[in-house]
Structures are given as C-alpha cells and as structure tokens.
C-alpha cells in the first residue's frame, strides 16, 4: 500500500476504510443462503410477519405503524415493526 493510500485510508470513516482482512461477519455472510428466491416471495412473507406482529399487539397494521412512528418510548416491537415496514417498502421499489 502506498503512502497516499495509507493516508486516505486513515482519513476515511470506518465504514469506508479499505480493510483487506476478513471478519467474522464476512465469514458468517459466506455461509448464508438467501431465504427467498424472489422479491415477490420475500414481500409476501414480510407482509405476513408484519400482520402477525400487529396481531400479537392486538393492533391493526396501520395502528401498529402509527404507534411505532409516534411513540416517545420505542420498544423492541416498534423497532421490529418499522424495520419490516422499511423492508416491505424496499422490496416494492
């Protein structure tokens, strides 16, 4: 690595630092297989997951998402709900 590359590497934020070593996380990724073969298949599963989560809270999906976005004290199920909402949105893109 040249001096210029070393200097640039130090200046970059950690997410972009040019690391060549392998990490446990990357090794973990290499063992993964996609859960779903298509976006459509993933979408249907995630919509079901969100409906199940809402039912567990005795809420409709709309009420759950409203609560998740407006609460001043996010609980783990709020975090899970907004993550599912975001994933569904990404898959519909």
């Amino acid at each position, binding site marked *: 690595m040249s001096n210029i590359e070393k200097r640039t590497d130090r200046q970059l934020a950690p997410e972009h630092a040019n690391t060549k070593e392998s990490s446990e996380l990357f090794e973990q990724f290499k063992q993964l297989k996609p*859960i779903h073969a298509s976006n459509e298949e993933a979408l249907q599963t995630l919509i079901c997951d969100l409906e199940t989560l809402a039912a567990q809270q005795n809420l409709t999906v709309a009420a759950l998402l409203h609560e998740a976005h407006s609460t*001043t004290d996010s609980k783990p199920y709020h975090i899970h709900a907004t993550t599912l909402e*975001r994933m569904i949105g990404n898959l*519909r893109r």
Partner: protein
Amino acid sequence: MSLKHDWASLQTYLNAHERVLNTFAKFMIQPRSYKLTQITANYLLLECTDIQFTTYAGNKVRVDITKDVEIVDSNPKRLKALTSGYSYNANKPGVGNLLRYDSPDSPAQLSPKSPAHHYHHHKHEWVDGEEQITHIGDDDWPHVDEFIREVLSDF
C-alpha cells in the same frame, strides 16, 4: 467528489461494521455482534438491537441499529454493497427516546399522507419530552461510529 456513503466491497463493508462495534464494546454492558439475514440474493438485513451502553456521563442508553444492504453480484468474486435504508435509535430506559436517525421512505411507501420528513434523511431528537425533527442532506447522515459517539458523548 467522493461520496461519504458509496458502494464498497461487501467484505470491506462488513469488516468495517464489525470493527466499529468492537471499538465501542468497552462501553457496552454486554458486547454485541451484528445479526445478518440474507433476504434475497441482493438484499441483506444487518441488525444489532438492544445494545446497552454506558455513556461517558455514566448513563444507561439502549441503542438499536438496523440497516438494509443492497448487494450487487455482477462480479461474484467481489460482491458490492450499499446501505439502502437504516434506522439508528437511542432510548433511555425508564425515560424514553433520545435520538433517532431514519432514512427516507422508499417511493412505494410514500403517499400524500406521509409526513414531510419521510421524504428525507432525518433526525428525531427528544428534548424534555419535546420532539424536534431535522432534515439531513442525502449524503450527510452519520455512519454507525458517528452515531454511537454522539450517543456516548451527548447523553
């Protein structure tokens, strides 16, 4: 001009995320690792929720990080990754939310009823129970290390 948030090799992307969590492990009550879920060949979910931190001021704060990662596999030997969505949340147990950064909603999520801030990267802050929302430039949202440093130093 180089972007703050740009495509990187997936290996570099994951290595950096692991390294950042390790860097801040000494402030965690229990060291934590990311959970990876590969939804499809091109969509990875990276999450580490319920991280219990002790801040520089000695306060207990819960942090939840979730990131959607788009993967491009045009060269299978060198997969590339880009964050396509994220949420970084900080909550003080028994008190409530302190801080959250969110990516914009995807076009499919947006509707005429969507709040204006859902069209932008944005930051929620709760000060004495009052919520303030600030829009953030497209490439100005924080990396995970910047967010954790903000939580540790501000709370």
